[in-house]
């Protein structure tokens, strides 16, 4: 799929049929600067206390199995991600959408519109792109290390309860997954990392280089999502 870069200015207009209640949407689309804030639970509570009168953060109701996971897989669910390339001055939006579900004896495969295949196995989610890459999203406490496409990749849960604010959207109780990687023949000093944030019942809501530098912006942010595109 890809993503494209759209910039950090954008309009977030969540679908009215979103079945998750832990995200509050602003009534009117407002163009604001997207600024992620990753905090601990305590910091989140403090922030909520400060802004509870204006933007209350709801608790997380468990709706169904798909919604209750950090990566809901169901046909019709879509995500729109925006990103910005400051050097080229371009902003891009890309939609990901599950278009097919295939049940097998040992696993269920979900097909994305961009050719990606995803499935659950044990406590991990495997994403396999049409070009041969594989992304493993651990949901357990154990780190996962693997090699793929000449890269040494380490996946590990960072902060399991994170508040993510993207523009005027607040995503609470996000799981932070830190990905560290390097070419297999390069030393540890060449390791690079990025952090992905998954909100329960929504999926990936943002991604940024890790550790973030002061003033840095996330490379990808969720602009729109929903169980079914209208």
């Amino acid at each position, binding site marked *: 799929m890809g993503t494209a870069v759209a910039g950090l200015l954008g309009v977030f207009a969540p679908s009215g049929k979103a079945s998750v209640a832990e995200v509050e949407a602003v009534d009117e689309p407002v163009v604001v600067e997207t600024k992620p804030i990753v905090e601990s639970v305590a910091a989140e509570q403090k922030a909520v206390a400060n802004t509870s009168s204006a933007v209350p953060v709801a608790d997380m109701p468990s709706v169904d199995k798909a919604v209750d996971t950090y990566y809901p897989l169901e046909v019709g669910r879509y995500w729109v991600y925006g990103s910005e390339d400051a050097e080229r001055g371009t902003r891009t939006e890309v939609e990901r959408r599950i278009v097919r579900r295939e049940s097998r004896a040992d696993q269920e495969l979900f097909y994305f519109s961009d050719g990606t*295949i995803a499935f659950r196995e044990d406590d991990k989610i495997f994403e396999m792109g049409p070009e041969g890459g594989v992304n*493993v999203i651990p949901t357990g406490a154990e780190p996962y290390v693997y090699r793929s496409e000449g890269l040494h990749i380490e996946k590990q849960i960072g902060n399991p309860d994170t508040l993510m604010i993207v523009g005027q959207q607040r995503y609470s109780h996000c799981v932070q997954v830190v990905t560290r990687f390097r070419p297999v023949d390069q*030393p540890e000093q060449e390791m690079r990392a990025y952090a992905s944030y998954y909100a329960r019942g929504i999926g990936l809501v943002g991604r940024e280089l890790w550790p973030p530098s002061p003033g840095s912006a996330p490379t990808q942010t969720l602009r729109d999502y929903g169980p079914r595109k209208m």
Partner: protein
Amino acid sequence: MLYRYSISIALVAITFSGAHAERVLTRVIDVEQSGAHEVVLDAGRLDGLREGARVTLLREGEAIVHPLTDEILGIPQEPVGLAEVKGLQDRRARAIMVKSYSRPQVGDLAEYGKVPMEAAATQPAPAEMAKVIKRVKTLEAGMQEYKKTQKSLSAYPVFAQQVWDEMGTIKSYLVALDERLIELETQQHEDRNRLTAMIGGEYQGTGKELTIRYSEDTDLTLRVAGKTLMISVEPDSIRLKEAGVSETQEMPFTEDGLYLDGEEVAEEGEEGWDISLDGMMEESPYIFAGSLLFIAIIVGGLLVVIKRRYDYVMGGLDEYDQDFLADDDEDVEDVEDEYGKK
């Protein structure tokens, strides 16, 4: 794909500096349980291992296979622990576990940073490497030569200007010397002529003044004033005439004697006189001998004066030459010093 995109973005930032050791894999070929956990690695000094190196032990899991194409997309690697190399051989190494997540097993992967310098020091360079080294050395030599050439070229304008100035000075000196030589030759020639005329010609004068008949109608008068010899050329103001010839008739030269112009004498109211050798011989041979002696003394004095004058001039010229050569040597030394500093 989001994952691929993010990795490709981050990969742009990776700098493959090569300053760090390359990571390579080997296998655990033996595990010893005596005391601390020790593992034997299938790599040694010649494989780039060194004493004290940290080795990461990994265990390969079940391959990640694409469910549709059965293509192996990745291999999980479970961390086993960290070991430190203690015993090193050419192709074997012993390592002690310093951190363990699980018990090491034979066949586990061992990842370490390869040190290329040791391998390069113990293994001869291949022929291609030797060629490259030779070529690099050739290029280095060429660069050194080029730098020297650049340095010489940069110093050339100043040096050339100095040489050009020296050449100009020498040329001026040679021109001056040539002119001086011509002047001396001219003067010498004139002196010779005068002496010849004095010796072979007639003279008239008294005391420190000598008049020589230089040409048919011109007298050359030499006057000595201290150390200065004054020479003056005076055309005739009186005419020579033969005795008995009319006053207006111009008398030619005769070997017998010189005749003064009677008209001039008449105008001045003085008696005419002539100088005749025959007459002198007739009157008194002593006078003639005295006259010859007097002439010889005068000529000798003139020769002494001219000789002194000539020595004086030549001495000044020698001093000029010596001064110039000394200055030239000093200039050459200055140029060499300046060139050496550059």
